């Protein structure tokens, strides 16, 4: 590089001072920590777990651990399609009224990462053993190892069960215990005494 004697006639640029280090020699010291979060990451706080069956287009998995399921009886309010957990003390009273259903509550997860508490109905002495119960429970069994969806078919009298064909990832399950998850799912939805509004409604008190 030529140093121009008459700077107004040349586009040549004077060299840098010889003492200057290469920019690359400085960069490691200049680089700031990147990707290290002051937040330390954020953890989702689980506030709601809907109690419902998966919808016909939802692929889902069932938690394979038997400890993550519970055979119990729940009450379904037909007007609002809401489910209530029934405490053991109230089982007798509600059974007499004929309004509770034995179910297996299972923890499920959809492809959209939503957690569900799914009540799979069990046949009773008085109910007719139907294709609905059988096919739903079959779907639940398959869903422990594969992604499935179930679609009601009235002409069949049961659910059609479809297994996903793609190579899909395994779901990530929450770390809470099943009891903790039940508390979230049935928050404010537990019938524990005869003064519960649902019980009052059944007896025509309100």
């Amino acid at each position, binding site marked *: 590089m030529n140093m121009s004697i008459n700077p107004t006639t040349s*586009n040549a*640029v004077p060299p840098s001072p010889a*003492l*200057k280090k290469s920019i690359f020699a400085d960069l490691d010291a200049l680089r700031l920590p*990147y*990707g290290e979060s*002051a937040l330390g*990451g954020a953890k989702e706080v689980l506030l709601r777990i809907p109690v419902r069956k998966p919808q016909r287009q939802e692929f889902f998995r069932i938690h394979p651990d038997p400890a993550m399921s519970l055979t119990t009886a729940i009450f379904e309010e037909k007007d609002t399609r809401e489910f209530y957990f029934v405490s053991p003390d109230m089982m007798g009273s509600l059974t007499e009224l004929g309004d509770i259903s034995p179910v297996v509550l299972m923890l499920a997860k959809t492809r959209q990462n939503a957690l569900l508490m799914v009540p799979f109905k069990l046949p009773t002495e008085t109910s007719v053993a139907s294709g609905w119960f059988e096919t739903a429970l079959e779907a639940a069994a398959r869903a422990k190892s594969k992604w499935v969806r179930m679609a009601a078919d009235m002409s069949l009298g049961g659910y059609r069960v479809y297994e996903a064909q793609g*190579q899909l990832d395994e779901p990530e399950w929450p770390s809470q215990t099943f009891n903790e998850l039940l508390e979230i799912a049935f928050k404010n939805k537990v019938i524990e005494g005869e003064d519960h509004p649902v019980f009052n409604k059944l007896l025509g008190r309100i």
Partner: protein
Amino acid sequence: MATTTPFREIWFTDFEFQALDGERPWPVCMVARELRSGRVIRLWRNDLLSLHQAPFDTGPESVLVAYFASAELGCFLELGWSLPANVLDLFVEHRVDTNGHRLLTDNSLLGALALRGLSRIEVAEKDSMRKLVCDQSDWSSEERMDILSYCESDVSALEALFKAVEGRIDWPRALYRGRYMAAVARMERTGIPIDTILHRAFVHGWDGVRERLVATVDRDYGVYDGLTFKSSRFNRWLRQNEIPWPRRPSGALRLDDDTFKSQEKLWPIVSPLRELRQSLHRLHLADLKIGSDKRSRTLLSPFRSVTGRNQPSAKQFAFGPSRWQRGVIKPPDGYGIAYIDYASQEICIAAGLSGDERLIEAYLDGDPYIAFAKQAKLVPPDATSTSHKVVRDRCKEVVLGLNYGIGAETMAMKSGMSPAEARELIYHHKRTYRDFWRWSDATVEEAFFTNEIRSVFGWKRRIRSTDKPTSLMNFPMQANGAEMMRIAAIAATEAGIEVCAPVHDAFLIIAPLDRLDDDVGLMRELMAQAGIAVTGGVPIRTDAKVVKYPDRYMDPRGSIMWNRVVHLLNMPEARV
């Protein structure tokens, strides 16, 4: 981070100079003051010209402090002085301090002072002094004293600003940014070589050519009435050619350039119309500032954008929006130029900073879009960008769109696929590059938590309550892309490569023919090193397009329009 000023001497420096359109600066006077000793140097032009070096220490134990230092350093270069070892640019540090905030003041020295409650010379007085400097070539003794005093008032303002911000200066990174301002001064001095004969022909002949150009292009469309674009005729042409077109809520066709730009990707047939509309609006070439040495020069406006990238005036920059007009860029006899750009810079940065192994693999594959298609099992393992062009192009739209937080509907509209197809590709992207998405989400979350987001070398953006997550997603790629360009520019200009200009993620360099290949090789090596410094180790590719005299630079997408225009100007020798 803030430390006491680590230098023995701190020199606040200001030049007054004239800068005629496209010419190098013509220094009129300089004032410099040292902080600790109070020593003041006031020199008029003839004194400046008699010196071979700056009249104060510019070695490693001193720092030169200026506001928009590339202007002062441009004067150093014009005077033949070696550049200072250390430069602190208070304009740049003011930008670092305030980037992302909505300011009530501008980013001038006066604005920076006002923001900090430091009032100085009134704007009207400043304007009248600037006029005195710029509009004359000879000054009386009294006028010289006035100008020197005015110059010294700027130095006082600099000192006041420095004292207000000294405790907050991140010295190591501030000096690195100052070093880039020296690179900017060099690049602005080099300028972009222009074929001035052709440039003059275009500018003087344009009015006569316009109507014939419209007639030539419009033969295939029938949408013009004279020089007026008729929306109703365009609507009819779209229907005849079964081309869907975005509309406003009123039902009127969207005719802005951004709409034409996205539509020409789907329907290349509209590309000549877009170019014609851009050119008719204004011949961009008329705004180029070309010096007597046939070099086009404009302020590169470093650190202007929120991501820290340069933002030169689109009208005055030879690489402005109209691609075909770049054909006036031509090396002089005995020289060649090279346009060297980073390949898929944003993807490489995303891969490197997130550490996503699959994204790194996709980048290193050479074509990250077909690589994504293969990784997502959308195409067979032996697919190529040619054999599966449609899928590859759609994957490209998704990869680039997701960087900007664009949703499925917009992607679908831009690429001609259905929204459902776009959503599916987005799902595949998120599933294939989980680590990237985790990193991206964590980066945005961190930004909202700490109220700032920054590059690896400290360029910051403050977060406002109105900022949306999607607007921040691309910041790491853009801001770190700017850092990569800065490092490469510093390395290249200090190595003696004549860099004409940075152009977003590329450089234009010039060299005598006997040195061209070596300079191109060195430039690519330095750009690669800059890439590794930013990505943390992922090697970034560059592509080089070399043009030797008598050929000219041409963007392939502009060649048809260029040839049309030179034909109408009766200059067949300029055809490409």
